[in-house]
């Protein structure tokens, strides 16, 4: 077992607790950056898809995992990001400013939505965001000059400083674009979590009453969480639009919202790593199933809904047996080997606390 001996407060403030962690993350980024040289076009496209899902997952994780608000309407924010990006590029804005603006527009939209939405919580908020999704879907169909209506719209080609970042023509470039975005957002996210803003999110999630007593403006904090979550989701939406290269209202269906919720719950609520693990599972599972299909020779396409069944079963298994998600499972496994043979079964068991102040509203 490694024991980290800390001599300054900076060791606790730093993003990585020691050099070993720094090296591991650096290695991961290098391997990811070198992927276009080793992986085939098919797997590179899959990796790009996973990165985009991880980005969208981080957006939802910030809201659900860290500030404790549920959203069933995040596909709407993906759509807003995608359409804002495409619309800006179609009027001649270069990709980079259009991409950043798409994030900001979606973020501001989310923050405005949050003003009425934060008065709700739990199931009511879920229904409200679901209703929002339906409204946005209708607007997408009605706003034909911008979105192409039911017919849809093609994403313009991405060029940055004359170099093509097109999804098909220059896939490695597009992959690196996604990777860079994901790395930057992850750093910003991790920074937030180690600073007062991130602690305020956690405080609001765990006890609004205490948060207020400590001087945290709950409404402002929730609005900020909503806005930031939507901004990140908007960025993911913009990239998703380019990855699909053709988008219409069906591209961002309610199933995307549900899949995003699966990403954060199966990945592990409250961990950035969870968004990545969840994205790998959600994007990798259909591939795994099709590989199994080829290997086993059983044609599952004869059973419509088979994949959905597998997804649902996995979700149920996780909710019942591993509420902390994939990342929680990883933490438990690591602790088991770290402490071997001293790990106890109930080390991670949640202690129920039945004493809670009657909510003051």
């Amino acid at each position, binding site marked *: 077992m490694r024991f980290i001996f800390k001599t300054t*407060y*900076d060791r*606790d*403030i730093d993003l990585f607790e020691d050099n070993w962690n720094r090296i591991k993350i650096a290695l991961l980024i290098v391997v990811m950056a070198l992927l276009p040289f080793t992986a085939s076009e098919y797997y590179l496209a899959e990796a790009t898809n996973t990165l985009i899902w991880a980005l969208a997952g981080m957006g939802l994780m910030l809201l659900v995992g860290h500030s404790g608000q549920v959203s069933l309407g995040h596909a709407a924010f993906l759509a807003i990001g995608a359409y804002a990006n495409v619309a800006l590029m179609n009027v001649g804005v270069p990709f980079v400013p259009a991409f950043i603006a798409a994030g900001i527009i979606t973020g501001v939209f989310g923050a405005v939505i949050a003003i009425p939405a934060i008065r709700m919580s739990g199931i009511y908020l879920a229904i409200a965001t679901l209703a929002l999704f339906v409204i946005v879907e209708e607007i997408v169909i009605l706003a034909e000059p911008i979105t192409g209506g039911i017919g849809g719209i093609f994403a313009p080609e991405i060029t940055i400083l004359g170099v093509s970042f097109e999804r098909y023509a220059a896939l490695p470039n597009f992959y690196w674009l996604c990777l860079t975005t994901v790395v930057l957002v992850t750093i*910003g996210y991790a*920074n*937030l979590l*180690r*600073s*007062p*803003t*991130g*602690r*305020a999110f*956690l*405080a609001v*999630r*765990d*006890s609004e*009453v*205490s*948060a*207020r*007593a*400590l*001087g*945290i*403006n*709950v409404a402002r904090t929730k609005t*900020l969480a909503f806005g*930031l979550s939507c901004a990140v989701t908007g960025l993911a939406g913009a990239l998703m639009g380019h990855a699909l290269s053709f988008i219409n209202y069906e591209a961002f269906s309610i199933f995307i919202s549900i899949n995003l919720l699966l990403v954060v719950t199966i990945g592990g609520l*409250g961990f950035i790593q969870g968004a990545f693990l969840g994205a790998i599972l959600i994007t990798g599972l259909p591939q795994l199933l099709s590989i199994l299909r080829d290997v086993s020779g059983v044609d599952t396409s004869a059973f419509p809904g088979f994949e959905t069944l597998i997804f649902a079963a996995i979700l149920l298994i996780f909710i019942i047996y591993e509420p902390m998600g994939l990342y929680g499972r990883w933490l438990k496994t690591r602790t088991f080997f770290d402490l071997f043979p001293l790990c106890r079964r109930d080390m991670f068991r*949640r*202690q129920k*606390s039945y*004493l*809670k*102040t009657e909510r*003051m509203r």
Partner: protein
Amino acid sequence: MAGTETSLLTVTDLSISFGGLKAVDGISFDVEPGEVFTIVGPNGAGKSTIFNLISRFYQPSSGRIVFEGRDITGLSAHQIAPLGIARTFQNIELFDHSTVLSNLLMGRHAHRRTSWVEDMLFLPRVRAEERAHRRRVEEVIEFLELEAYRTKLIAGLPYGVRKVVEIARALATGPKLLLLDEPASGLSVEESQDVAFWIEDMKKDMGLTILMVEHDMNLVAQVSDRVLAVANGRPLAQGSSAEVQSHPAVIEAYLGTSATSKVPA
């Protein structure tokens, strides 16, 4: 009894009713700087409601709350902590899924000077602030002897420790006035002795003013400078702990009318 110019907290004629029930009905008192002022009373007397009124969770139907000469009756709950008023909760309201350390750091929120943009970029200023917060939090940890629990999650801690963390988090806000809502409830005799010593130390060494609600009369007698007894939202008696405990109206409220004649004053 309108407070004098020097009072830290002056509460005048405070009332609130829930539906037809007058939970607090015309309570007035003032807390002088550096004293321990305790509110006692039977269950449902309105003690915690007074706390919730002062920390602005409830809006009084009438009355005024003045802190350091400033009327705080119209402020929101989140504007109270930056003024220097911190509170604990009777039924422990900690952030269960965070460590003791980050719970205490959340207590420093009222002192944050950085915006979320700076936080996201983690500018050098943010790091400097974090160090300063941590230094303050470590002082609190040392004072309340929480070193062993620093990195433990709240969810796994025993009740007694949580109770102390609750006080620690309030102290981390750097208050002038500390509201303790039943700090000794559910604690063992030794643990409530510790709480008594800490209250004395907070008063003498840190110069804090403490407003406390407590049932444990031993603790009340040990630490309180002045005691206010309330029942059914009305004030019964005010004075030293011994005076209040022997006051006929207080005995009547606790034991019933016929008891008055049998208990020697």
